[in-house]
């Protein structure tokens, strides 16, 4: 194992004890990952994901990526476990078994992606190689430039917030968007998602209700819907066009109802639904 890692050539500067810790942590990561894949109890899976994150964090510490480790510990092991648990409570405690056929595709993708990475190993710079491009290019330049440009001891913060602050802004927007998505789709009080779109003020669905049901006779246009109290509902074109005409149509409506006997019931429910 050791020789495999050193094999890529170049001076490996890591000390063996760190390497042992690295290998131990990665071995545990693999074990936990397999446990997560094999497990059916969602509660255990969520907990194991927390464990996985925590071990990742420990591993990042041995790689001297303290900031990343901190984030991983706070987000992965900390709050996301709680969030996953609260989401799990809404679904089920057990995951349904997945057939072998269904898991074949993802397995293939994983194997291919992994094989591709292994394919690249011979040409990779050695682990911890001081002369690798990543350690000599702009990455190293930050180390020298940040001291005078930004004068912040923590280079990670300097890169994150100043040199690549624009990336961080976009990341913030990603998080903002995630929050906005939750607000839009779930709502904060657990009561979102029951509103239904209506074609001209009526509930129809492409499959449940054929379109002919709303194709009402000549004059019975949905503009005649009584305006809902909150501007909630009917997608009627705003009435500013010709209020008089709208009224006239409203007056005509009863007549139209007679011709289309089936119509009124559907329409009434549609109207009510939209008003409430």
């Amino acid at each position, binding site marked *: 194992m050791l020789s495999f890692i050193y094999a890529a050539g170049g001076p490996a500067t890591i000390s063996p004890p760190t390497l042992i810790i690295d290998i131990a942590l990665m071995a545990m990561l693999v074990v936990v990952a397999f446990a997560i894949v094999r497990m059916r109890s969602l509660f255990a899976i969520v907990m194991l994901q927390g464990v996985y994150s925590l071990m990742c964090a420990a591993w990042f510490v041995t790689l001297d990526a303290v900031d990343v480790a901190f984030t991983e510990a706070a987000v992965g092991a900390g709050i996301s476990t709680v969030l996953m648990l609260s989401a799990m409570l809404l679904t089920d405690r057990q995951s349904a078994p997945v057939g072998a056929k269904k898991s074949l595709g993802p397995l293939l993708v994983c194997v291919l992606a992994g094989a591709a990475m292994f394919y690249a190993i011979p040409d990779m710079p050695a682990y911890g190689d001081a002369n690798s491009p990543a*350690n000599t290019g*702009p990455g190293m330049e930050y180390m020298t430039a940040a001291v005078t440009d930004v004068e912040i001891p923590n280079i990670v913060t300097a890169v994150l917030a100043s040199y690549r602050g624009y990336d961080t*802004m976009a990341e913030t927007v990603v998080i903002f968007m995630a929050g906005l998505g939750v607000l839009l789709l779930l709502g904060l009080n657990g009561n979102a998602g029951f*509103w*239904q779109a209506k074609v001209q003020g009526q509930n129809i669905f492409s499959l449940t209700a054929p379109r002919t049901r709303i194709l009402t006779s*000549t004059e019975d246009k949905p503009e005649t819907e009584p305006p809902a109290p909150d501007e909630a509902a009917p997608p009627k074109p705003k009435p500013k066009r010709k209020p008089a005409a709208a009224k006239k149509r409203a007056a005509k409506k009863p007549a139209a109802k007679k011709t289309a006997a089936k119509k009124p019931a559907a329409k009434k429910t549609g109207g009510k639904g939209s008003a409430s």
Partner: protein
Amino acid sequence: MLNFLNLSQAWIAAEAPVAIVVLPLIIGALCALINKERIAWLLVLLTTLICSALSFVILREVMASGTISYGLGGWDPPLGIEYRVDGLNAPVLMLISVIGVICTLYALRSVTAEIEPKKRGPFYGAFMISFAGLLGMVVTGDAFNVFVFLEVSSISTYVLVAMGASRDRRALTAAYNYLILGSIGATFFVIGVGFLYMQTGTLNMADIALALSESGESRVTQVAFAFIVVGLGLKLAMFPLHLWLPGAYAYAPSFVTAFLAATATKAALYLLLRFVFTIFDPTADFIISALTWLLAVLGVIGMFFASFQAIFQTDARRLLAFSSVAQVGYMLLGVGIGTMAGVTAGYVHLLGHAMTKGALFLCLGAMWYQFGVTRISDFKGLGKTMPWTMGAFTVAGISLIGVPGTVGFVSKFALLTAAADKGWWWAVAAIVFTSILALVYIGRMLEAAWLQDRPQVDGVDVATREAPASMLVAMWALAIACVVFGVNATWPLELANDAASVIMGGAG
């Protein structure tokens, strides 16, 4: 101290690449707080208009003086993030922002019909952020910044698609599928960028290209290429990776579908061009074989496969979605030909198809808005009940088939000549044959709409009920663009030629 007066023309021209992205981001964040949908809509319309103006300024600047480079944060490019606009991405910027304006115009009515009232403000916010994400993806010259904006646009797109749930609950499943596949795509992309960083030590695209040309071909580069192509392929619905697309397009709110169909896959395709030709070395053996086998051959298979699937669809939007996959195949074929003419043809097809598909989806949205039409069997008599909408649909549909006089013909003809020049007669045959398939599936709809009688309810003919004016304006704007650029194709061809010369200039 505050030099507000500095907002001179020169300042605007200099800062436009950033302003075009940041402005919609800020407005998007603001819209989340606005409860009045009219105000939100006005803000969005104003923003998209300003962005279009800015993109026009950028395009003019690029035409006049070549590449624009902007170092964000005042840092020099390899250290900081660079915005880099040249002939390749300026037209895409223009395309996205103009389509944004048109879709916003259309959105006013369609959102009222499809989105819950109190959510409309935040919904416009999400649209704005998706818009900004697409622009950001296109304008940047930094490989990691691409990923970040890819995420911005993707996450907002998932939400936008899922908002179709108030029309059809299947939107939720579709959005979930898209989320899973999109996340996998983004992960692949970022792994690829990581490999590039490992190989070159920098994230700036120009720098990467330089370092790659120095270091030559290595396995790391090859793996980076593979991951990036697969990641972007998922985003642009390359043939075997297109599974998310039909569902997402079929169930999203109608103006979102139109916007996505016209811009999202196009932005991803631009990125593919950018990565394959200007970052990697297109003369390398593995890239040449990837172009031929991965892009061109898969593109052709996709054209056939998706066109056949489109023929057998019953849902009009799904049909057009499969047709989109087929059209992506055309563009990939153009890219895969790999010659100047081929890339030009692919690029023109990118621009033309954006207009065509945008117009088609806008028309479908209006049909749902007025009559609840989603299935092709319901198209019966639509030419009489919604003549103007159906007219726009017909014009765009003809362009999709590639009838002379439309922009679809221009690009397909360019593609045909490029393939013939290369001696790929199988590709020529494929283009002709799939165009016939397009004629079949578009023809089905047109036949039902124009040749059949208007439907009756309880023995009474259904009245003519045209879509509202704002919708008509939007769809006709795109339909007319299809014809105008079809008759007088110099402008798009010129743009595409510039773009191709940027690419091929890099190749040497």
